């Protein structure tokens, strides 16, 4: 896991397990989120992301393992945890029959903010999330983006120490997504720890200090976005003049990168992942030239997180196969 000896952890879980009947949703999840950082929990549908959030926010009890949030045990000290967290789930978690303002005032009351304090905080958040104009309308009439913003506002009433966001931007248009991202950045600037789950690698790349890749209920890989990219090296990519040149280009890239190249006959491209940090673009071009492969274009770039994701979950799968 992420090793930072001097930091305290806002979220720390060990061997979290949860079963739903036959489905083993979590099979020993370890998480360590340092205080004041953003941790992106990344994984495909069904990887266990939502279950993890529900366990950490006291909505579910784990079958095995333990977790502490803001220093408190999520099973034995539920109330202490609840006083220190904000949660925005995947589905709308505001009352669609109440107005935006009524929602925030209700949740403020239930957080124990009495009298004017709750009303003022609600007004402040409505303003901050650009919802003042819609504050008097039932939340059911809001657009998806507005509802998500209201949801987020409801999670921030008490200025929580740890904020959980379960796929906060799924299904949102780019403008709303940018608003949510800006809000998350503003929070971390104030020292809030954020754990967000996402299917979007771009989101994790933009927001997260650390990324935890979970696959089949386990943390498969952990690291900063840069570390994850470094782990799969760089991506060499060439465009040749005709389809007939592709096998020879592939042979050259195979030799240089040590990995099996992927060929695209339509685009006449050959690409290969390189783990060799010393590989440079001039070396690729010289090698292709020496082999007399006519190329139109060549590039060597860092991999996208999508490529990291596919590759790392792939290796996690094959590793498991080796073990079993």
């Amino acid at each position, binding site marked *: 896991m992420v090793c930072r000896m001097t930091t305290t952890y806002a979220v720390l879980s060990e061997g979290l397990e949860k079963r739903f009947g036959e489905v083993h949703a979590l099979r020993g999840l370890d998480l360590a989120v340092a205080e004041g950082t953003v941790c992106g929990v990344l994984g495909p549908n069904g990887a266990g992301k939502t279950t993890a959030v*529900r366990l950490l*926010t*006291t*909505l*579910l*009890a784990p079958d095995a393992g333990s977790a502490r949030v803001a220093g408190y045990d999520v099973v034995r000290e539920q*109330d202490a945890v*609840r*006083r220190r*967290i904000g*949660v925005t*789930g*995947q*589905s*709308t*978690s*505001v*009352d*669609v*029959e*109440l*107005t935006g303002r*009524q929602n925030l005032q*209700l*949740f403020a*009351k*239930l*957080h*124990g903010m*009495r009298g004017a304090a709750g009303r003022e905080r609600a007004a402040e958040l409505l303003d901050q999330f650009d919802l003042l104009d819609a504050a008097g309308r*039932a939340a059911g009439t809001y657009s998806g983006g507005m509802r998500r913003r209201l949801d987020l506002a*409801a999670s921030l009433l008490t200025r929580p120490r740890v904020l959980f966001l379960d796929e906060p931007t799924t299904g949102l248009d780019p403008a709303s997504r940018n608003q949510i991202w800006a809000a998350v950045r503003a929070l971390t600037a104030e020292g809030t720890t954020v754990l967000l789950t996402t299917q979007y690698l771009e989101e994790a790349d933009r927001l997260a200090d650390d990324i935890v890749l979970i696959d089949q209920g386990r943390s498969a890989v952990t690291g900063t976005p840069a570390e994850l990219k470094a782990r799969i090296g760089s991506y060499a990519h060439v465009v040749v003049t005709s389809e007939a040149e592709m096998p020879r280009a592939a042979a050259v890239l195979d030799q240089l990168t040590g990995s099996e190249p992927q060929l695209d006959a339509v685009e006449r491209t050959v690409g290969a992942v390189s783990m060799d940090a010393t590989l440079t673009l001039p070396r690729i071009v010289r090698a292709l030239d020496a082999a007399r492969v006519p190329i139109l274009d060549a590039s060597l770039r860092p991999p996208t997180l999508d490529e990291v994701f596919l590759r790392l979950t792939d290796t996690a799968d094959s590793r498991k196969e080796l073990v079993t």
Partner: protein
Amino acid sequence: MSSLAYDSTAMFGRQLQRIKHAPGVLVLTQTMPITMLLFFGYVFGSALAMPGEQYRAYLVPGLLVATAAGGLMTGMFQAAQDSHRGVMDRLRTLPMSRAAVPAGQSAADLLTTALGMIPLMLVGLAVGWQVENGPLGALGAFGLLMLLRLATTWMGSFLGLLTRSEEAAGQLGSATFILPLLSNAYIPTDKLPGWLRTIAEWNPISAVASAVRDLCGNAAPAPDAAWPVAHPVAGSLAWCAFLLLIFVPLAVRRYANSGR
């Protein structure tokens, strides 16, 4: 104020705000028993051995009790609706009292039910029902009606949390309209065949309906009926206490653990 009282007040306020936003449902639930009073009272009433006015006087307490027992349906639907919406998840991540959600809801429900009974009572008085035992008896009858409402709402809350969807709760809830039909709410039970009479008289609705008739001076309890109907006030109190003792803890536990 304790956290339970404070949180319940907040949930009570939420419930009233919801009603304010969608008053149609409330109007509909209040007009239903009045329609039934006029329909049963004049259509069936003219075919029964009992004279029309006397039957309508018999029917009004029955309809009041049926309205109170409708808490079963309301509680069921509300609990199912809430638990299948994300808002319950948010409530469950808040540092609030676990019992506040159902407690606040039933408090708001009692208030709206009490207010909603007024039109039915007024129409009832206009078509022949009388309160002949003074204000104390009427107050006692009203108290029993509220107690039954409370008990059935909690029972409904628990059942609603057991259902898997709002639709299922709605279907099951509408099926509860047969419960007053299997009691002395609309017709006297003494002409029913023995086994059916036993079932009808052990229906909590029968006990409360007899108690309301007794306390309002409409009809004395039938001495040959089953115990809760022969001693209707004690029978009503016992039934309501029994239901509350069972379903309050069950519902609170279910609220706290739903989704686990």
